[in-house]
């Protein structure tokens, strides 16, 4: 086994690698390096990654078996070393199977098939008809989006309700619903909000979610009247034609929302001068925006403290936003909102948007 006997105890694994083998293996390693560089230039699509890993593993095996002597050494050492890669594989595989199969995060890339968010694939063909599935979906959405104002039992007694005028709708009562109490009419309220109140539009929620909310909210009181075909047509559902024709409000990509969330705290703005509501934009602002953004756009605690998730929303001064400089960004944020953060005012037309932007610009200028 050994070519040279050491003076004392000579048994054991004292294999001396011959120079020929050492140089041969070394040469093979150099060749394989050239191979891997060359093959990286050949477009094999998905295979490129696998081939690169394969060549690297062959090289690694050569180093381990010959240079590190595992081919000639006692078996245990090879088993010990190999086990480390086994544990590494467990580490990688378990992490990946968790991460790439989470259904609640929208991710880009080839694994999207596994990680589709609910919003991308509507599962219910006719959401305007109440089903137990839709009701439970609505209940979950309600507990996230609505309970702060409308209360846990829908009585309009949520933690944020006290300061609101008019008060949030009590769903257990049949009277007083501004748009009516049919599912399509509740759906309309969810699309447009109730102008002149704190009920914001929820255009950013997918249509299926809005139907689910409508059905759930109606289930809190007595049974509603059924929708006729004309009612459904008013909200863009053509029952005879078999489909939904209402335009979906596009939501902003997750990355953009995350980026906005991670922006550093802006410095406190100088106190904005109170600007009277002389303009149409100013009136719009005071009616729809001031309760969260502050009368002079200085930021405020949006009155949503004490929700189930203990979320506290504090708006930054408007001067910290990039939106004011760009009409396109401003209109996008105001119309579509920011998912999970700010409701969108989908019902504003172009004139109203530019008036609002003009007013906000004045507020921001006063803050500088």
């Amino acid at each position, binding site marked *: 086994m050994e070519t040279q006997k050491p003076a004392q105890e000579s048994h054991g694994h004292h294999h001396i690698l011959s120079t020929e083998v050492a140089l041969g293996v*070394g040469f093979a390693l150099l060749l394989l390096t050239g191979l891997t560089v060359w093959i*990286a230039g050949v477009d094999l699509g998905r295979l490129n990654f696998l081939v690169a890993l394969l060549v690297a593993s062959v090289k690694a095996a050569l180093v381990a078996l010959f240079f590190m002597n595992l081919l000639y050494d006692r078996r245990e050492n090879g088993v010990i070393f190999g086990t480390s890669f086994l544990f590494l594989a467990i580490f990688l595989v378990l992490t990946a199977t968790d991460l790439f199969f989470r259904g609640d995060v929208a991710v880009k890339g080839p694994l999207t098939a596994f990680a589709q968010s609910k919003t991308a694939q509507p599962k219910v063909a006719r959401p305007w008809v109440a089903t137990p599935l839709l009701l439970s979906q609505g209940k979950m959405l309600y507990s996230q989006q609505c309970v702060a104002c409308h209360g846990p039992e829908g009585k309009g007694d949520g933690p944020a309700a006290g300061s609101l005028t008019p008060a949030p709708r009590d769903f257990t009562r049949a009277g007083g619903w501004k748009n009516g109490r049919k599912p399509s009419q509740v759906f309309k309220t969810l699309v447009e909000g109730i102008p002149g109140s704190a009920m914001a539009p929820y255009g950013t929620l997918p249509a299926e979610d809005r139907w689910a909310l409508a059905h759930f909210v109606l289930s809190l009181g007595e049974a509603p009247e059924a929708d006729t075909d004309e009612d459904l047509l008013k909200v863009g559902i053509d029952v005879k034609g078999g489909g939904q024709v209402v335009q979906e409000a596009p939501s902003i990509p997750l990355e953009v929302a995350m980026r906005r969330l991670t922006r550093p705290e802006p410095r406190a703005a100088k106190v904005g001068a109170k600007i009277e509501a002389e303009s149409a934009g100013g009136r719009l602002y005071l009616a729809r925006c001031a309760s969260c953004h502050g009368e002079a756009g200085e930021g405020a605690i949006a009155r949503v403290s004490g929700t189930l998730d203990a979320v506290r929303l504090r708006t930054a001064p408007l001067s910290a936003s990039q939106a004011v400089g760009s009409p396109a960004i401003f209109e996008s944020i105001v119309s579509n909102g920011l998912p999970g953060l700010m409701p969108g005012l989908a019902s504003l037309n172009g004139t109203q948007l530019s008036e609002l932007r003009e007013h906000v610009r004045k507020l921001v200028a006063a803050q500088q």
Partner: protein
Amino acid sequence: MTTTHHHAHHFASANDEFEAAKQGMWVFLVTEVLMFGGLFVAYGIFRGLYPDMFHEAHKFLAVNMGATNTLVLILSSITMVLAVTATQRGRRDRAVLFLVLTFLLAGCFLVVKYFEYAHKFHEGLLPGGYFVNQELKDPKAPLFFSLYFVMTGLHMVHVLVGMGLIAWLFRRTARGEFGPQYYTPVELVGFYWHFVDLVWIYLFPLLYLVG
């Protein structure tokens, strides 16, 4: 012509001591696999999440420098093996020569690395919050360079430690402390050095070639 090495008294024989030391070295290398492995898993996860970004970002790495460093490290592994076998055969002068060559090749690796990093700093391709490059527009790009700098940086630290160990071996070999009867430190530092090469064998294609 070696100084007689006396094995520690709690071992029955010099051979037992040698086998125990070797196995201890393998156990240490297992911990190294898992340490670098953690970074490779992070690489794998983020690559799975942002494959397009990785593809764009990896184009900004210098493949020729990475390939050169791969060749340099492989050569240094060859010279390291030859240093070990020379010691096993009692050829002290050759052992010293090969140790010196290994050391110099490691130095080459560092020099190439220096130019690589300097170029990155110049281009603003920096990790995480320091990323200021204007050409690479993907908002997640800093993530790639965080991984790049941590993985190659940790590897570089290992190269530096290895160079220190090789220098230590050089001194002891020159003083005649090793030979066929006793070459354990030479072999084990050799294992460490081959492991450093092994990590680079995986780092190079994953970062530079396939992004």
